[in-house]
């Protein structure tokens, strides 16, 4: 029970840990930068392998399935599908390790 998600009760003398339900504009800016960084890594690897005439299955799958930062809707950049939430969406910062994990796709129609 360590870290930002410690269960403490203010009534019992514990501390209050609060996070906002949505991202700030600076967090959104950084999220866009991170998405672009991943896109540039993928592009670099793709370019380097193409010069040798090689390719990798994981690279081809990423290019086929995943949208780039430009192609993504803001809704997909800053929120994720959540089956138990009202309207089936919640903010992406609630996803553990969200700054170090690629989460770009959500079920169609949600």
């Amino acid at each position: 029970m360590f870290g930002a998600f410690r269960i403490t009760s203010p009534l019992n003398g514990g501390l209050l840990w609060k996070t906002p339900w949505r991202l700030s504009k600076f967090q959104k800016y950084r999220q866009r930068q991170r998405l672009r960084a991943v896109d540039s890594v993928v592009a670099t690897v793709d370019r380097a392998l193409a010069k040798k005439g090689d390719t990798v299955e994981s690279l081809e799958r990423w290019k086929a399935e995943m949208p780039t930062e430009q192609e993504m809707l803001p809704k997909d950049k800053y929120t994720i599908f959540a089956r138990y939430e009202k309207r089936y969406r919640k903010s992406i910062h609630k996803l553990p390790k969200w700054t170090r994990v690629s989460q770009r796709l959500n079920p169609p129609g949600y």
Partner: protein
Amino acid sequence: MSWFRITLQRSAIGLPQRTRGVLMALGLRRRTQTVFHPVSPQFAGMIMKVKELVKVEEVDQPLTAAQLREERRPDPGFYLEKAARREGGPLAGATEPEGSVRL
């Protein structure tokens, strides 16, 4: 023969053992460490596994550890007009070519 210059930008603390294994396979032990690997499907696949943590550049020649350290060395801010005579040899970076202007 081109090389990947791979730098670890984000740490793997709290990430699964598999991801940490990939970083160890690449030789990345600590943040902002840089390694060089030849361009091949094997290393490309490893980079794809940790692409959120890593910064990649394509270069012609790999650098040695000494060269990487030299890259980080800042400008000394001085130069010696006349180095004192010493047994070991001239001080590295102290001597300037004749007629050069240091701004």
